[in-house]
């Protein structure tokens, strides 16, 4: 379980997160939606400690971190191992093959044996549909293949939660659909995922739960059915923006 209590994050003058209180349950797919600049990515990155909110508590697996206090390196690394992250720009390691990208962290962070890591990496690459790319370098992959490789790389660390920050925003619609199908399949297999996306169809059909953020606050927290039928004018306006 991931739990944020009274979390606040400010960038100089701008308050990106305002008194956030939310719990993310295991085996649940949560989709975070909201307008640009509403704090979605900041919230997600705070869960991986890539962002450090100034105040609030963060509980992960019975361990509570106080954002107002110094967070030591060991704790930071522990949290990051628990919360795998996939970004809009995947940040593939260009000097390594796709297989190398997937096994690098398991070998050096988890201290996995190389042959074990390689076997598992091949399985993961097959699972995301790019088994044939193992020996290629990142520049030889399409955008969609690269994003799948990034998902495999994150999964190789066996994170308790997979965090995805707009993983399909830079992709064409067809490739986006391919990636979202993979994520939907993972959701059906009860992977614990938190996904920031603008794709409302995905939110409707794959999410167990939707969070709607507006101006750094959680304005809605509930099921997809409730969200898409919500009477709130602001949510209606947000959803109508996707219609032509």
């Amino acid at each position, binding site marked *: 379980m991931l739990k944020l209590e009274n979390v606040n994050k400010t960038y100089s003058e701008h308050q990106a997160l305002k008194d956030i209180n939310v719990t993310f349950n295991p085996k649940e797919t949560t989709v975070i939606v909201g307008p640009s600049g509403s704090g979605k990515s900041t919230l997600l990155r705070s869960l991986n400690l890539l962002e450090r909110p100034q105040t609030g508590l963060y509980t992960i697996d019975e361990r509570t971190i106080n954002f107002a206090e110094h967070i030591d390196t060991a704790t930071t690394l522990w949290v990051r191992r628990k919360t795998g*992250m996939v970004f809009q720009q995947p940040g593939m390691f*260009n000097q390594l093959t796709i297989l190398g990208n997937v096994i690098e962290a398991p070998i050096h962070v988890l201290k996995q044996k190389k042959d074990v890591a390689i076997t598992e990496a091949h399985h993961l690459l097959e699972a995301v549909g790019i088994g044939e790319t193992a020996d290629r370098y990142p520049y030889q992959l399409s955008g969609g293949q690269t994003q799948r490789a990034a998902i495999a790389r994150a999964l190789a660390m066996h994170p308790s939660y997979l965090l995805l920050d707009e993983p399909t925003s830079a992709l064409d619609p067809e490739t986006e659909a391919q990636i979202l199908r993979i994520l939907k399949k993972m959701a059906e297999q009860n992977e614990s995922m938190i996904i920031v996306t603008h794709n409302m169809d995905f939110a409707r059909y794959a999410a167990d739960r939707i969070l709607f953020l507006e101006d750094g606050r959680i304005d809605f927290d509930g099921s997809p059915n409730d969200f898409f039928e919500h009477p709130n004018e602001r949510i209606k306006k947000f959803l109508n923006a996707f219609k032509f």
Partner: protein
Amino acid sequence: MWNFIATYAPQLIMAGIKYTIPLALISFVIAMVIAAFVGVMRSYRPQVDGSKKILWRLFQSLLIFYVWIFRSTPMLVQLFVAFYGLPKLGISWLQPSAWTAAIWVLSLNTGAYASEAIRAAISSIPATQREAAQALGMTDSQTFGLIIVPQAARISIPTLANSFISLIKDTSLASVVTIVEMFYLSQQLAAANFEPLQMYLLVAAIYALFVTILSFPQRYIQRWADRFIK
């Protein structure tokens, strides 16, 4: 003309093999160690607080000072300071021989320039890769050593190769601290045979030959290092 080349070229080439090439190779190896250390340390941003942060900043200031002093003063002056100036301090270990003075000045000077090339190469690696490595739970040093440095090394190869070429030519400055390297010998020979134009053109040609031969491996190193880019 061919008679002139046949007479003097062997002597100059021997001086080059005996002095110029060892001076360049030894200095370059030391310079690369210095450059890698300074370049990496100047780019490294450890997550430290309090007194450790102050110490780290002091250390970085020292490195910045080193780069500044060696880049903003002529190498010729640095050689004079090292060979003629330091012994005046009366400190025994600060009385270098001509060879030691030349090697240290060439190494420190080249190291200062090359460290900037390495630093620039490190900063050119996209921040997304650093962030992805951190998100995977890698430590700062793992991120740096496993992800950033290997790519920065490839990017810095052409600039470092340029540094090496400059260094080969800069060894001619060692003549001012009494090392009888190729250029010093050519000066002596020109003074004896009163043929300065031919002699200096010949020594220039031999420098060009050395540079061409010694920079030949760069092509293969670059091709190998470029295997993971378009």
